[in-house]
């Protein structure tokens, strides 16, 4: 890769050890991906949940870090000034309700230390998996480095911003340096359709959009799908679509003609490309996806979880559950971002939801809260969810039995205590 004088000086160590390592690693990554140079970014979305996790981005590598090494990296981080609008993905606890979710005080303290370091160096510790809705909204053509497999897909596809499918590490290095290797989604010639997905059935519930996403990622794997005969979506449906697509897939961008800014029409979406394949999403395909995401779904349900509802979805959940009670043998955990929970509290949706016995968590998702077990895992022998992404991952990460279906069905299950 061609480096500027400033970049060469960083490699020589002029700006300290952490930035040196960050740039060396980005050069290795960029070289492997065929980039010839770096370009500036103005927006990043990273992980910054606790300093022992942040420290994993730096040397020594190949072995576990000692406490002294983590402390040293933490102190070095405090001297760095980030000049890119940077938000933080799901945390490992709810900062306000960590006891309720089973975390102990040492985890809480380590998260609050990360909050303090982030604030000092110019990173916004939002702990949100939907930054594209509230705190970090890039504009069309804005070059970004975003991790989180659903959100980077959203900003490429719906906002017309430009980000590769970044790992937590590469997005983090990019926010520290303000640059990213110039390849893939940063080059206009790569932002065109490769495969056609033809919709031949009704999409009635939010979970149907998740099923479509799962179908798309599973069918194509890596590529840029273009949707045909897709009814005009709203933001909540596109969220479900994007989050589900990159459960089975590794898709950098999808194009919805008439919605995606770079695809006013089907022809414009392909820009002369001939689709490699056409996939038909019909009733049979939809049922196949529901069947594959549900696993031993009938029986008592230990936990029902909604993943990252918007404020509008919270208003609907409040309406559906108002005056009802969650069954005593189960838990309904609604997990959203802190800014959305705050609004829900101001308006009163939160009170209605909690009066039913449901719990309203913020700062993360069930998966990230419990994948690395920073907190005592709740009973999860059977989970019900409206999220295709959670259904897919909870089966494989927690070995849970799964009910996957609409929000309406999940609320019925919460009241009844089972399927």
């Amino acid at each position: 890769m061609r480096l500027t004088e400033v970049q060469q000086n960083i490699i020589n160590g002029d700006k300290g050890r952490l930035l040196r390592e960050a740039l060396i690693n980005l050069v290795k990554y960029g070289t492997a991906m065929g980039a010839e140079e770096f370009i500036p970014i103005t927006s990043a979305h990273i992980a910054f949940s606790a300093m022992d996790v942040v420290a994993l981005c730096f040397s020594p590598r190949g072995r576990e870090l000692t406490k002294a090494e983590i402390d040293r990296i933490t102190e070095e981080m405090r001297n760095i000034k980030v000049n890119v609008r940077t938000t933080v993905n799901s945390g490992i606890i709810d900062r306000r309700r960590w006891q309720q979710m089973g975390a102990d005080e040492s985890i809480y303290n380590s998260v609050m230390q990360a909050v303090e370091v982030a604030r000092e160096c110019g990173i916004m510790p939002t702990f949100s998996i939907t930054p594209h809705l509230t705190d970090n909204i890039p504009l069309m053509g804005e070059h970004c480095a975003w991790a989180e497999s659903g959100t980077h897909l959203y900003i490429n596809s719906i906002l017309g911003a430009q980000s590769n499918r970044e790992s937590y590490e590469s997005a983090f290095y990019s926010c520290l340096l303000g640059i990213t290797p110039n390849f893939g989604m940063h080059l206009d010639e790569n932002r065109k359709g490769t495969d056609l997905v033809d919709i031949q059935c009704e999409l009635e519930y939010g979970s149907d959009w998740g099923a479509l996403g799962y179908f798309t990622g599973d069918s194509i794997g890596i590529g840029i799908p273009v949707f045909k005969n897709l009814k005009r979506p709203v933001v909540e449906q596109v969220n479900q679509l994007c989050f589900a697509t990159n459960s089975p897939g590794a898709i950098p961008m999808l194009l919805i003609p008439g919605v995606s800014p770079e695809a006013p029409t089907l022809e414009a979406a392909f820009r002369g490309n001939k689709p490699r394949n056409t996939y038909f999403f019909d009733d049979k395909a939809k049922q196949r996806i529901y069947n594959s995401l549900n696993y031993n779904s009938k029986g008592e349900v230990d936990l029902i979880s909604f993943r990252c509802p918007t404020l509008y979805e919270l208003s609907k959940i409040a309406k559906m559950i108002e005056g009802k009670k969650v069954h005593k043998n189960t838990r309904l955990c609604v997990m959203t971002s802190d800014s959305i929970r705050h609004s829900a509290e101001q308006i009163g949706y939160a009170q209605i939801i909690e009066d039913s016995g449901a719990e309203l968590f913020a700062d993360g998702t069930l998966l990230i809260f419990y994948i690395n077990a920073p907190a005592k895992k709740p009973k999860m022998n059977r989970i019900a969810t409206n999220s295709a992404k959670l259904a897919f991952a909870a089966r494989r990460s927690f070995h849970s039995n799964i009910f996957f279906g609409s929000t309406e069905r999940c609320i019925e299950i919460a009241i009844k205590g089972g399927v």
Partner: protein
Amino acid sequence: MADIKKFKAKKVIPGKATGPALITRERIMFLGFIDPKKGIFHAPQTELYGKSFRGAVLIYTSGKASSGGARGLDLAVRAGNAPAAIVNLEIDPITVAGCAFDDIPMVQVEDPSIFDQVKEGDMVTVDADKGEVIVG
């Protein structure tokens, strides 16, 4: 020596390594779906469920899913359970990042017949700089 097979490969991350093949046509993710401390795949309903990847040459279609894939791989490396090398047919930047940061040799092979010609446990050498995968 009659059984030696060679596949043309494109260098992604430099290096040379040898190990027993662990092979699947599935796409793989390394966060949540593996146990980094034990060095095994632990996601039910996946082909490699229960198998150890430590020291193996992993041959599979591509990475997928979480941005934490590189982190999961790094946790395995830090626990002493690094795979020897990774061979993919399609390139997902998150796998590339993981291999780049932990110096795991990685190549891209375009010939899908590798799935028919290599079986689990075959000794495989990945030579990224020469651009070849040698089996046998």
